[in-house]
């Protein structure tokens, strides 16, 4: 089992969700996050004082998939989230030791 974490632009959430569903991935967790990579922020003015806002709003999608589904999921995210500009985001992949369904204590890939 693989955990796939993707940090993407908030405006791409709907497109990525649809692409993942089409690829057969049904379970995911969506978090609202703030952050940046090499993308610079912007300045705002309040009553004459300048503020640099460099923690930008992002969306993080997390999902745990069977090994054989990992590539499909990654492809789905890449094709739907990419704009070609700095700030598109990143995908991280890691191995998962176990998955357990809370409802009936099912374990392993069948619990996904």
């Amino acid at each position, binding site marked *: 089992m693989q955990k796939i974490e993707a940090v993407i632009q908030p405006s791409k959430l709907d497109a990525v969700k649809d692409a993942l569903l089409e690829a057969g991935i049904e379970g995911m967790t969506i978090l609202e996050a703030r952050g940046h990579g090499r993308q610079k922020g912007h300045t705002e*003015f309040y*009553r004459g*004082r300048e503020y640099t806002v460099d923690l930008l709003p992002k969306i993080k999608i997390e999902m745990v998939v069977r090994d054989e589904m990992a590539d499909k999921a990654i492809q789905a995210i890449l094709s739907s989230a990419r704009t070609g500009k700095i700030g598109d985001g990143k995908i991280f992949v890691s191995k998962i030791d176990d998955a357990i369904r809370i409802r009936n204590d099912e374990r392993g890939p069948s619990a996904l």
Partner: protein
Amino acid sequence: MHPRRLIRLLCIFPFLCAASALAQTAAPPTVSNGDNAWMLTSSALVLMMTGPGLALFYGGLVRRKNVLATMMQSFAMMCIITVLWALIGYSLAFGPGTSFIGDFHYVFLHHVGLTPDPDYAATIPAQTYMIYQLMFAIITPALICGAFAERMKFSAMCLFLTLWAIIVYSPMAHMVWGKGGLLNAALGGKIPCLDFAGGTVVHITSGVSALICALYLGKRVGYPKEPSPPHSVVLSFMGACLLWVGWFGFNAGSAVNASGLATSAFVNTHFATAAAAIGWSISEWIRNGKPSALGAISGAVAGLVAITPASGFVQPMSALVIGFVAGIFCFLMVTVVKSWFGYDDSLDAFGVHGAGGTIGAVLTGVFASSAINPVFGAGKPTGAIEGNWHQVLNQLVGVAIAWGLSIVGTIVLLKLVDMIVGLRVTREEEIEGLDVTQHGEEGYDFGS
């Protein structure tokens, strides 16, 4: 006596009383229902300026962790000043007294009933006048909270502002509006200062006291290096609009009746505010490249402040000028002057109210017109544009007294309250936030 006869006699008794009362009160002024309706409405409008107007305006400007504490400061004034006013506040401000302070004639609102007090307002019940003035007494200390936002103890604020209302507000209100007041233009004060709705009494006193508080308490943790932008300009926007609408009660209600003078004050208020918002926005557009919503509403408030002393004295075109000038002046005070001197007037109480009130008071002396309000007698010149340049001097005296009383009174009271209770929260409390540390609550709980 037979019971039935007794009952019949008792039934006549109230009519006998009324008849004798009518005979006794044949001479005094009569209540105008129109005037009373307008003045009660104005009172409600001015209270709305504090709650929720000021509460929202200030609340939106602070960080999320302090939103409730900031709103609570306004609300506390609505409660505490009311009780204080009922017991002794009104008497100290509006009792006959001396040139500088009232007395205890109206303590517990003795002699303040439903018949008019002809010196103050001949056509409305004395209690209407009293409650109208109360709303001014409420908002004035509430304005000061903008200077020490996000770092003052709630207990210290309550004690300090209660004492301030007695030591600074009541004497200033008395001098400008009270019987025998030194600066009272309408009731023959020795140095007549034209202040229609409280530019000196409300805005200069609160704004200058705010500056003293900001200097005495010191800067917030992290100021100016760490940014603390407003957590909700949306709330401030709503507050500012409520202030604009409520201010019609503040200025037009200061006519104390529903006459043409109220109309003049209403029109002047509206015109000055619009012009000031434009003045600030243009200045900001030039200086920062974009006109912000916060800037526009701040400009509007600056205009409202500046037109306050002038509202019942100037022509509508003068109101446009006063507003436009105030918008630019206050913009410079808040953006340029504040960073020069480096004081942490968190919500610009001095920059907008102190500065706006001062320039408004001076411009009142310039633009006052006897055609709008012949306060010195029919045909007598009122302001500089009619040849009475001496009035500008009188205005400066009023301004100086307001500044002086505020500075001295505030320093003394801050020192006193600091010794009794301590003014500032601890560094840890300030970082954690006042909502949790002072009031045990959180403003928003989106998770629940």
